[in-house]
C-alpha cells in the first residue's frame, strides 16, 4: 500500500459518533481493485444482503479507486455503494467532479458509514483530522445553499458531497450531490444517507497520490491523453455538445423512449436537443478533475417563468424530463433539472415517474382531483410542479417520490412502470436497441445504461458498428462491456474515457500507479469477479433471476413508428445466450465452478 491506494479506510459509526482509521484490506484490494468492486466486497462481508436498506444496519460506503486523484485519463471518480431502498439490489452510484480526488488527497480510500446519528450531522475531514459536527442548521437547505454554508464555516477550499431536502424527505431516488452539480445519481443512495441523519461529507486534503513508477505512469498518461485528444468522440464530439448531442441521434435512430415508452420517436426532439441547448441556455463547458474532455454544460436559464443557473440538463435529463413526458418546453426541462440538483434527486427516475403518472392519468387511473392538476403528456408546467412537490414531500409529490414502480403498483398497474428491478430505464428503447434491452434486464442494479453501454457499438459505431436489431453475438458483447465497465468503475476512471481508450490503457495506468502488474486478461477477470459478486449479493437479497426481464410493453408491444417500427425486445432469445456466456446455469445462477474460479464467496 502507499502507491495508488492510500491504504486507509475511515470507519464512521454514526450511532456512537466514533471515527476510526483502519488499514485497507490488501488482499481484497488486489482482487477487487477499489471503488465499486472493493466497496461491494466490504458490503458483502459486513452486512446481511437481506438488511432493511433504511435501517442502521445497512452501511453506506464512499469509495475511490487506486487511480482516483491521479492524472492520466479522467481519473476523478468515486462510487457510493450500499443496499438500494429503491430496488432492493446492491447499489453503486458513480460521480466525478473534485470531491473524489480531494478525499484521496486527505489520505483515505474509503469511508464506511455505519449506524444512524441521533440528530442531523455532517462529517468534516481535514487530512487526518476527522470530526462529526451538528447539521441542524443545514437540514432543509438545498444542496447549493448547504454547500456554501459548510465551506464558509469549515474551509473555503473544502469539497462537499451532500444530500438535499429529497434525501431528508426520503424520496426513493434521492441522490448525493457533490461540487454542487455532480451526483451519485441512481438507486436512491441519498435516501440511505438521509436515513442515517447524515447531511454531508466535507473534505479538505492537501496530500497527493503516490505512484510506484512515476516515469512509467507519465508514459501511460501521455498515451491516454494522446488517444483522447485524437479520437473524434473524445476530442470533438463530447466537448462540442456534451452528452446532449444524443437527443437527435437516438431519436433519428428510432430508440428515444417517448411518452412513457409508447413510441420510439419524439416529434419535438429538435426542441430539446443539444443543438438547441447550445443556441439558448448554454454558457460554457466544464471539466471534472484532470479531464480533457469537458462534457459538463454550464447553463443559464432565462424565461418569463423561471430564471437561474447551474449545470445541465444532460442527455438523460433532457430525455426523462422531456421526451419521456412528451414535453418539448426546454425552459421547463432546464428548470426541472435545476430543481432536481437543488433538492438532490435522480433526474432519470424523477422524469420517468412523472411520465408514468401522466400515462396513469390519461388512462383514468389517477384523477385530476387527486393529483391536484391535470397530468397530460406534454405539459411542462405540470412536470415542473410535480418535481418540486416530490422534492418537498408535498401534495401528490409524495406519490411521485415513490418512483414509478411503487406509484404504478399502488394503482394496480405496475406494468406501466418502465423499469427493471424497480429502477427506471434510461434514454434508450430496448426494442430499438436489442443489446440495451438485454443490458437492462441483466444489470445488477436494474435498468441502467452505465453497466454495459451497448449503445456505443449498436448506434454510435464505437469501437465498431453492430446492427441494433441483430441478436447473434450480443450476449458476448454485453458480458464484455459489463465486465470492462466494472473494472473501470473499480479503478476510479471515468467511463467516458473508454470511448477513446481501452482496458489496456487502464491497465498501464493501474500497473504504474500501484506497482502491481496486471495485464488486460487479469483486469477483465476483476470485472467479471465484481459482476459475479454483485449477482450473488442480489440473489441472497431475494432478487431471483425471474426479475431478469423487461416490462410487458417492451416484450409485446411493437414500436409503433420510426425506423424501428414493429420491433419488440427479443429477450427470450438473448437471455439464455447471456447466461451461457456468463458461465451460469440455465436458470441464471452462477455455478459453483464459476464462482470458485473467480474466488467469489457463494
Amino acid at each position, binding site marked *: 500500500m502507499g502507491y495508488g491506494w492510500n491504504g486507509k479506510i475511515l470507519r464512521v459509526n454514526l450511532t456512537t459518533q466514533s471515527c476510526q482509521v483502519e488499514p485497507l484490506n490488501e488482499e481484497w484490494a488486489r482482487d477487487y481493485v477499489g471503488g465499486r468492486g472493493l466497496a461491494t466486497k466490504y458490503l458483502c462481508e459486513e452486512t446481511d444482503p437481506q438488511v432493511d436498506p433504511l435501517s442502521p444496519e445497512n452501511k453506506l460506503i464512499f469509495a475511490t479507486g487506486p487511480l482516483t486523484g491521479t492524472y492520466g485519463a479522467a481519473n476523478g471518480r468515486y462510487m457510493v455503494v450500499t443496499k438500494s431502498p429503491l430496488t432492493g439490489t446492491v447499489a453503486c452510484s458513480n460521480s466525478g467532479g473534485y470531491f473524489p480526488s480531494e478525499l484521496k488527497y486527505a489520505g483515505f480510500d474509503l469511508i464506511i458509514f455505519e449506524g444512524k446519528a441521533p440528530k442531523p450531522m455532517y462529517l468534516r475531514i481535514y487530512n487526518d483530522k476527522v470530526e462529526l459536527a451538528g447539521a441542524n442548521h443545514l437540514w432543509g437547505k438545498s444542496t447549493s445553499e448547504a454547500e456554501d454554508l459548510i465551506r464558509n464555516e469549515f474551509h473555503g477550499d473544502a469539497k462537499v458531497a451532500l444530500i438535499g431536502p429529497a434525501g431528508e424527505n426520503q424520496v426513493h431516488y434521492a441522490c448525493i450531490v457533490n461540487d454542487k452539480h455532480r451526483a451519485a445519481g441512481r438507486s436512491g443512495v441519498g435516501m440511505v444517507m438521509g436515513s442515517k441523519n447524515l447531511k454531508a461529507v466535507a473534505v479538505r486534503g492537501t496530500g497527493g497520490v503516490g505512484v510506484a513508477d512515476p516515469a512509467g505512469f507519465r508514459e501511460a498518461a501521455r498515451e491516454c491523453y494522446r488517444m483522447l485528444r485524437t*479520437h*473524434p*468522440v473524445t476530442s*470533438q*464530439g*463530447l466537448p*462540442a*455538445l*456534451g*452528452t*446532449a*448531442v*444524443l437527443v*437527435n*441521434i437516438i431519436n*433519428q*435512430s*428510432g430508440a428515444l423512449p417517448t411518452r412513457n415508452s409508447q413510441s420510439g420517436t419524439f416529434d419535438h426532439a*429538435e426542441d430539446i436537443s*443539444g*443543438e438547441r441547448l*447550445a*443556441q439558448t441556455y448554454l454558457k460554457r463547458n466544464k471539466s471534472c478533475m484532470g479531464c480533457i474532455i469537458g*462534457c459538463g454544460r454550464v447553463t443559464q436559464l432565462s424565461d418569463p417563468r423561471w430564471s437561474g443557473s447551474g449545470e445541465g440538463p*444532460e*442527455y*438523460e435529463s433532457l430525455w426523462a424530463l422531456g421526451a419521456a413526458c412528451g414535453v418539448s418546453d426546454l425552459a421547463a426541462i432546464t428548470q426541472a433539472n435545476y430543481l432536481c440538483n437543488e433538492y438532490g434527486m435522480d433526474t432519470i427516475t424523477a422524469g420517468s415517474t412523472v411520465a408514468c403518472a401522466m400515462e396513469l392519468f390519461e388512462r383514468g387511473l389517477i384523477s385530476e382531483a387527486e393529483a391536484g392538476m391535470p397530468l397530460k403528456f406534454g405539459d411542462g408546467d405540470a412536470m415542473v410542479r410535480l418535481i418540486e412537490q416530490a422534492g418537498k414531500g408535498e401534495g401528490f409529490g409524495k406519490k411521485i417520490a415513490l418512483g414509478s414502480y411503487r406509484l404504478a403498483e399502488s394503482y394496480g398497474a405496475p406494468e406501466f412502470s418502465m423499469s427493471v428491478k424497480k429502477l427506471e430505464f*434510461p434514454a434508450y428503447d430496448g426494442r430499438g436497441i436489442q443489446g440495451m434491452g438485454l443490458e437492462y434486464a441483466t444489470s445488477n442494479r436494474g435498468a441502467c*445504461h*452505465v453497466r454495459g*453501454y451497448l*449503445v*456505443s457499438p449498436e*448506434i*454510435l*459505431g*464505437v*469501437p*465498431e*458498428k453492430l*446492427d441494433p436489431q441483430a441478436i447473434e453475438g450480443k450476449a458476448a458483447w454485453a458480458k464484455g462491456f459489463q465486465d470492462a465497465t466494472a473494472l473501470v468503475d473499480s479503478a476510479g476512471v471515468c*467511463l*467516458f474515457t473508454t*470511448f477513446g481508450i481501452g482496458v489496456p490503457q487502464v491497465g498501464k495506468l493501474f500497473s504504474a500507479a500501484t506497482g502491481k502488474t496486471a495485464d488486460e486478461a487479469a483486469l477483465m477477470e476483476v470485472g467479471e469477479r465484481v459482476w459475479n459478486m454483485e449477482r450473488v449479493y442480489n440473489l441472497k437479497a431475494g432478487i431471483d433471476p425471474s426479475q431478469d426481464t423487461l416490462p410487458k410493453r417492451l416484450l409485446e408491444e411493437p414500436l409503433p413508428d*420510426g*425506423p424501428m417500427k414493429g420491433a419488440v425486445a427479443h429477450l427470450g432469445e438473448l437471455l439464455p445466450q447471456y447466461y451461457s456466456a456468463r458461465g451460469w446455469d440455465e436458470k441464471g445462477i452462477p455455478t459453483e465452478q464459476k464462482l470458485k474460479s473467480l474466488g467469489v464467496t457463494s
Partner: protein
Amino acid sequence: MLPSSSTSAEAFQVRVQIFGLLRLMLNGLESLEVRCAPGETVGSLLEKFQAALAQPVTHKLLTPEGELWVGTIILVNRRNVLHLEGLQTPIQAGDVVALFPPGAGG
C-alpha cells in the same frame, strides 16, 4: 421540341440534415437542399454538399483517406449507411440524409 437538358430533367433535390458539431460550425444551419444526379451515392453527395458550403466541414465526417471516422453516423431515411452500402449507398429522389459527426454520451 427536344427537352432542354436530359440531365436537368432527371436531376433531383435531396435534403441533407445537419447535426452536432457540423451545425455549430455552420452557424446553426439545420439542413441544405443538394441537387443530385442519377447514380448519386452518399459519397458523391458529400462532395456536392461540401461544394455548396463556404467552409470545409466534411473532414469532421471523413478521414483524410476518405473513410468514415469511427463514430460518424450517416443515415439515409433513418438507416445507418454502415448497414447499407456505406459511402456507396445509392441516393434517390425523396431520400433524406442525416449527418452526425462522431459524438457520444450516456
